[in-house]
């Protein structure tokens, strides 16, 4: 590898992707569609009083088969932001790696960090550049969330496969189970929730998504595999301990089991009408 020393007029600046192109390491888009690519599925983000929560299930599927049970889909992008991914697993992991590197590279070359807005736009460009891959069956649709140190709030961003960037106010989800997780969050979201309340809502959203969508994995009590949850606050990105997530799932499952057993076969209000 030659030393990347450029003349002033030829300098790629803080853009790591451009640097990769200059040295011939940029990936080449496929020329035909690829079948049976491994896909990752449901991820979500919720704003709360101190920042944001990001969560994702752990399942990866190829067609109707489960190909991986312990996939990570929620990653730190840098100290105060995170990125979660749904879509073709290989390119998605690569996009996360590139995004993390890009933010770090910018910070080191320029001597200060990008704004949260700048980071969101940077990811938007990466998704847009990925479109040739998406058209060959390898779409990647990320979520981006972070704590805005200038505005002192948690913010979240949703994307489409063309790189369209949509800032959401309260919550966002993407992936095959996003419809169900989104419905749960829509019903349960309240302004000014605590970190704990937001975590319970995220866990409930993922549980319902797994309940309805075959490509989304629920809590795996046999193997002890639980969805990933991370919080991003002024203190930075922090992965929630698996034991805490397991405990919250257990509580959710217990309360759901209780309500199921009291309403077997009939709606309780219908039952009342029968006895009267």
């Amino acid at each position, binding site marked *: *590898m030659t*030393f*990347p*020393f*450029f003349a002033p007029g030829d300098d790629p600046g803080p853009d*790591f992707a451009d*640097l*990769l192109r200059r*040295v011939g*390491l940029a990936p080449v888009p496929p020329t035909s569609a690829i079948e049976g690519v491994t896909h990752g599925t449901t991820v979500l983000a919720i704003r709360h009083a101190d920042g944001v929560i990001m969560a994702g299930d752990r399942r990866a599927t190829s067609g109707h088969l489960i190909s991986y049970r312990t996939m990570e889909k929620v990653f730190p992008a840098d100290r105060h932001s995170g990125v979660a991914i749904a879509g073709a697993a290989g390119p998605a992991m690569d996009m996360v*790696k590139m995004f993390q*590197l890009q933010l*770090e*590279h910018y910070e*080191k*070359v320029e*001597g200060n960090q990008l704004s949260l807005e700048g980071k969101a736009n940077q990811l938007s460009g990466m998704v847009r550049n990925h479109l040739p891959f998406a058209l060959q069956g390898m779409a990647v649709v990320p979520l981006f969330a972070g704590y805005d140190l200038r505005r002192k709030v948690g913010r979240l961003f949703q994307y489409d496969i063309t790189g369209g960037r949509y800032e959401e106010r309260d919550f966002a989800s993407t992936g095959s189970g996003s419809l169900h997780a989104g419905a749960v969050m829509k019903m349960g979201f309240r302004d000014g929730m605590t970190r704990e309340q937001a975590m319970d809502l995220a866990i409930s959203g993922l549980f319902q998504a797994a309940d309805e969508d075959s490509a989304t994995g629920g809590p795996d009590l046999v193997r002890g595999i639980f969805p990933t949850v991370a919080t991003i606050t002024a203190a930075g990105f922090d992965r929630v301990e698996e034991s805490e997530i397991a405990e919250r799932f257990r509580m959710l499952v217990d309360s759901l089991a209780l309500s199921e057993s009291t309403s077997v076969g009939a709606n309780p209000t219908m039952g009342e009408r029968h006895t009267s």
Partner: protein
Amino acid sequence: MSMPFYVAPEQVMKDRADYARKGIARGRSLITATYADGVLICAENPSRTLRKISEIYDRIAFAGVGKYNEFDQLRIAGVRAADLKGYSYSREDVDARSLANQYAQILGQIFTHEMKPMEVEILVAEVGTEPSEDQLFHILYDGTVVDEQRFTVLGGDADAIAGRLESTFTDGSDLKTVLGACVVAIAGPDRTIPASDLEVAVLTRGEERRVFHRIDDDEVAELLRGAT
């Protein structure tokens, strides 16, 4: 076509070296020293925005003295080389020694082949998991690489400063002691340097991934309080 006058190669090299040394001597000096929990880099630098010390990679820092635009160009090339290597192989494979060699190549090349040598002296420091694994590479304007132990001084007044530090420096001291000794050595006997005119950063021996940290003026003032 007119024939150029013959100039002996020895003379050409000597003139270039003198030119580079003169440029470097105009700036203020910088010390890098090892301490118990890492590597300290301390520079006299009244500017808050034009940095002499910066992060290259997880455990590697860069420092330069001399002409700002020239060492900054080298700094950015180092960040690029490190990030590219980490991307192609793995983060663990990025090391100071290989980077120092690349710097030496480019500086040597420019010194012998370009019209004007670079008026810089640079440092590549890496903190190890054990104090014995700390590495300090001091690279001169002509591509000479020196693998230093304990501490090294960059800049025009290097010999005098190194002499002063030699008498006060002890291996394995804490940050406060070493920073105090470095600042006194840079200042010399006749003056004191206020914290606002210092640029200080450390590479800490720790479990974190990125261990480069800047120490701001208030913390520097606090560390210097009571130190001799």
